[in-house]
């Protein structure tokens, strides 16, 4: 290795892996705060539980894999996964769901594939999908409702904490997510009637809109810092709009376009999930296609599927396709007439 150290370049930029992870965490904070403001302490408590269990799980698997523990934990990627899970899981879900999700994300999704940067699936999304399928009841009924909609105050910190620390899922004032709600109600009501229901008098998708805007703010920060590129997010919005614009024009029969964009996890997914470099496609073109696919699938699952939100499943499906996308989206290298595409070298011209 001595040879390696002495060859060019002799200078390095000042970027570090942990700096990147920390910025992504910082960028997720506005969203987390907005969630907590509108939906109560649950999100913050969940985030803490997820971060702690993700870090512990990573430490454990690192020891098992005989890898340096502290050095690896320092890169803050486990913390980031914890935060992403914290903002994804329902605020009234019991603590063990967080622990299972975080542990699964770290051990099975990340480290069994070789650790940081080598995972095929997005850890947060895979873990979310796992607990959603395994524990459908707490996962679908543990969402909270803003006070302006339910008329009931959000639980205090200590109340919330005791809910979260119970074994049983809390089922007091919980309700389905706005997307779910609209989807079930619109079968019986017109859009105008729906607007009169208590869920809508406070304003169209009250709360969740601000959450989405807060995530957008964080996403723009990441774009500004050049930590993410625009291709994935723009791809996702494009994919979603391509289907939503023609098929969701009639608000009486389908979820309106704006709801697709701002009433679910779309913005979060666009800037924090689709942009996960390890499990996304590689080239800029590939990232766009990856995002585009997530957008299309999200629309399809939301419209015809049975799950509260579709980002997670759409992302997982695209994760599987990413290596394939990579083979067909290599950039055109300087001096080559066209990109090298596919799995075989082109016939060499003599």
């Amino acid at each position, binding site marked *: 290795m001595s040879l390696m*150290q*002495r060859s060019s370049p002799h200078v390095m930029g000042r970027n570090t892996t942990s700096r990147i992870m920390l910025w992504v965490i910082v960028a997720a904070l506005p969203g987390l705060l907005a969630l907590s403001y509108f939906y109560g302490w649950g999100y913050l408590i969940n985030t803490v539980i997820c971060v702690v269990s993700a870090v512990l799980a990573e430490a454990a698997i690192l020891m098992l894999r005989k890898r340096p523990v502290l050095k690896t934990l320092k890169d803050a990627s486990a913390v980031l996964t914890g935060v992403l899970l914290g903002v994804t899981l329902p605020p009234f879900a019991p603590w063990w769901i967080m622990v299972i999700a975080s542990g699964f994300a770290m051990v099975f999704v990340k480290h069994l594939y070789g650790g940081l940067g080598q995972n095929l699936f997005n850890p947060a999304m895979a873990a979310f999908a796992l607990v959603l399928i395994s524990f459908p009841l707490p996962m679908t009924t543990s969402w909270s409702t803003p006070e302006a909609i339910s008329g009931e105050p959000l639980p205090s910190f200590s109340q919330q904490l005791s809910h979260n620390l119970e074994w049983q899922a809390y089922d007091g004032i919980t309700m389905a997510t706005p997307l779910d709600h609209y989807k079930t109600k619109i079968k019986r009501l017109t859009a105008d009637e729906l607007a009169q229901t208590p869920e809508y008098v406070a304003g169209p998708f009250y709360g969740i809109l601000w959450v989405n805007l807060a995530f957008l703010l964080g996403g723009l920060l990441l774009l500004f810092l050049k930590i993410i590129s625009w291709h994935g997010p723009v791809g996702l919005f494009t994919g979603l709009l391509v289907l939503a614009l023609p098929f969701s024009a009639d608000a009486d029969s389908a979820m309106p376009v704006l709801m697709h964009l701002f009433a679910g996890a779309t913005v979060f997914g666009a800037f924090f999930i689709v942009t996960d470099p390890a499990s996304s496609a590689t080239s800029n073109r590939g990232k766009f296609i990856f995002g585009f696919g997530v957008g299309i699938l999200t629309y399809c699952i939301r419209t015809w599927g049975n799950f509260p939100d579709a980002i997670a499943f759409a992302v997982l499906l695209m994760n599987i396709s990413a290596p394939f996308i990579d083979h067909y989206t290599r950039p055109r290298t300087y*001096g080559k007439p066209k990109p090298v595409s596919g799995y*075989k070298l082109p016939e060499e011209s003599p």
Partner: protein
Amino acid sequence: MSRVDRIWPLPGGIHPPEHKSESNGRPIARLPAPHHVVLPLHQNSGLPAEPMVAIGEQVQRGQLIAKGHHPVSALVHATISGRVTAIEDRPFAHPSGLSVPSIVIESLSDQEAALSPEAVSMAPMRDWATETKERLVSRIQEAGITGLGGAGFPSHIKYLGQRQIHTLIVNGVECEPYITADDRLMREHATDIVTGTQIALKILSASTAFIAIEDNKPEAISAIKAALVAVTDTRIKVKVVPTKYPSGGEKQLVYLLTGREVPSGDIPASLGIVMQNTGTLYAIKEAVVSGTPMTERVVTITGEGTPNPGNYWVTIGTPIQDALAATQVAVTGNRPRVIMGGPMMGYDVDITAPVSKVTNCLLVPSATEFPTAPDPDPCIRCGLCEQACPANLLPQKLFWNAVHHEWEQARLNSLSDCIECGACSWVCPSNIPLVQHYRFAKAEIKREAIETIKADQSRLRFEQRQARLERDAAEKDAKRKARAAEAAKAQAAKAQDTPSTLDASAKDAILASVARAKAKKAASTGPVTQEALENTVVLAQQAVDKTRVKLATAVSDGLPSVEALTGALQKLEKRLADAQSALQSHTETGDAP
């Protein structure tokens, strides 16, 4: 904006700290003439030259002291007047750290020097505009001018290419941090560079010249512009390019200025473009107009380890340690550490090695200036490298391919188009020494390719041997049948013969069979081996011829493969010689049984 003024922005690229101000503030100073110089016979990527002087012989500055048989082997000129004291292997400033045969010249004592002429003089061609192209090219060759950057090709080669050239690009970009040699040269010798450009335009019969300078060198830009105003040559244009590393890379600069890309694996001449360094054009002007051979160049000596950072005229062949000592750098043993070139693409050199024609910078870092990179973290696939790559590659994929020895995949990901600029390594947050991995991968791929060729050759040999054996078997079979037929005949004849003649005929038969056995033996060993040897010679000859042709084209087009081909040719020639001598000795021994 017209095509002529337009700049095509470079994809990727980085902005490392420039560190130019340390060395670009003072005029170029001249280092005192060295006590001795070391002139490698392998100064450039061409073939080695052969010495034309003997030890003890007195030579003059500018005298031709070594030359090669091949056009690409540059001529080696004495860079000081003095006496040849050794012709031996000496360390050479090259990434490989190899030693190569070199001529050592020691300067004369003062009395001796007073008696001998200063330098070999070439007649100045003040009226160069009326000279023929051929005379100008041979002047460039005689003056020993090579490219002052990169691989250091003999410059006249660029003027001998067969392809029609329309644009000359003068590369004054100097995008590497720390280096300011071209900057100072342009500020102080703008008129000379412009004259050099005009001479080059004439030789190439090109219609346009772009002088490209990065916008962090405002003084150089205005100096060149002023010089252009003075000559009013409308063919020559200054193009200011944004400061960004690696804008000065040959391929990158071609794109920046013309919007065209040099095809993968080819050279700018395929687009009708020739690129020259400012220093080369300065040297061309000196050689043509003043008749001065190229014996010195501007070297930036900089870094926190130098008390007097700046630019210096350094005699080519000066041992690096002597050049450093002349600028008051403390030299002890093999310390300090010296990087030849800049921090992005330079390499560590042995300080006993000489300054060569491509030495643009001697960077002497302090112990803390370029800290050893911390151990790399895993690749997080953040894609920062990809955004920084000026060649539009996927560095993170190439890294993965290199680590997992996926050579086929590496080729799919166009590894060979990587210019090793190091932009990807620079931005990598995980501190992965990406370029080192690519160098390793390239070397491995090359090795495997060579092995495949070898395997192909031995397969060919095997097949030929197989075919020969089959042929032999068939012949033998035919003979055996013939013999059987003969024997049957003899049998028939014997039945009618008398006993007395039977004895004789049996004798005959025995004799005949002995003779046959002898002949057979001869047939199976002698001629066959002879044939095989002849075969080998023919094959070797063919291989040598083919490689010679390839080398010649590579040389005339200035392709980077010259070095590899040269090595291959040497090996093949050796193989041919071996085969010939084997054949020779066989024929001799075979002829005398």
